[in-house]
């Protein structure tokens, strides 16, 4: 389907009965939404399940959806609400499904093959600690942080997505950043900045 057709046009086509229009919308956003949810819940199976839930809800609600914001913003809203519910209902430690070998392998490819494996292990451990610090943020702080930092949304769009005032988004972002700084300080107090 034509890439030049914008999302809103596809939504209109879907509303007049075109299933293909929805397939195209899904193709455009499934990876992004999955990535957002994976960073949010840190578990592949749950992220996949939630991605399906996002598009299921979108499909069911699209017929009566009124475009007050961009379609993508609306998808992020559904995803964020599901992620927040997920954290609320599970209230559990994230399960890291990443295979350690995968991470090491990716690093070996990306970095000097001759670099020593102990250092790689140290770095892998550091990555895990840092992601755990991110998971210590409240679900709203984390949503704000992820949407701004990794989904490329402007403060205004994050505000629309999460149904908050822009000022509130900024407060969450400030608190998230300060909390991360406090949690991660021990990591760099041993090393020079």
């Amino acid at each position, binding site marked *: 389907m034509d890439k030049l057709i914008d999302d809103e046009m596809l939504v209109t086509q879907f509303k007049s009965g075109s299933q293909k229009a929805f397939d195209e919308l899904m193709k455009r956003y499934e990876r992004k939404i999955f990535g957002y949810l994976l960073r949010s819940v840190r578990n592949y199976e749950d992220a996949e399940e939630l991605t399906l839930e996002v598009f299921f809800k979108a499909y069911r609600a699209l017929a*009566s959806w009124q475009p007050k914001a961009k379609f993508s913003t609306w998808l992020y809203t559904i995803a964020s609400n599901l992620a927040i519910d997920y954290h609320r209902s599970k209230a559990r430690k994230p399960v890291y499904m990443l295979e350690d070998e995968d991470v090491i392998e990716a690093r070996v490819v990306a970095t000097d093959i001759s670099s020593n494996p102990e250092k790689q292990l140290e770095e892998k451990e550091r990555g895990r600690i840092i992601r755990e610090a991110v998971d210590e943020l409240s679900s709203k702080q984390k949503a704000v942080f992820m949407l701004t930092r990794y989904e490329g949304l402007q403060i205004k769009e994050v505000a629309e997505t999460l149904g908050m005032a822009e000022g509130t988004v900024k407060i969450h972002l400030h608190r998230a950043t300060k909390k991360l700084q406090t949690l991660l300080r021990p990591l760099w107090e041993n090393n020079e900045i």
Partner: protein
Amino acid sequence: MPKCNKSEAQAIDYVYGELDASQVVDFEHHLSTCDNCTRNVNAYKHVLHLVDEAEAELTPHIIAPRNLEAKLYRRLAEVPPVKPTLHSRLSDFATGLLLTLREQKVVSFCLFIFAVISIAFFVGNPFRPAPTIDMSQIDSADARIEQYRHQDIQRSMEDVLRNKHLRNSDGWDTVSQLNRVKDQAQGTNWANIAKKHLKNVHSEL
């Protein structure tokens, strides 16, 4: 050294690029004279750098979930379809009109106005509701699932051929992959295509 009159929030906004151009100039001027703010800015930049690195480790694992379409349509087939409300129909009509105007400009506008007037005149109902999204009316759910199954098989077949040609897979690997596709494709034309490829590969072995 002048007394610091900047808040930590400003340092964070600066790091996120959320200050406007004149505020940036002002804040950078302040940074050149304030050790405290410089230290804060460096610390925040460093924190974000660390988190970016850790999150980047996930990026290679972020691939679209497999068979999402098939799973979605299977799930949708299990629930009754949603009927749009009158309000949403009217709004859709307005949205459709706006989008059409934007795409096709003047000609379509004139045609559209003409059409609306004619319909209003002869039929009296220009706001004909958009068709309900009902799987049975468009395509049956089963047909959708079958269609996605075909796409899935096609994707598997493409994978096999890609592996064979681009990655120079071992002939026996290709045979076992083709056998899997053949099983997956039972009852479709793809099964015959897989058989044909199998025959070719066997003759090359």
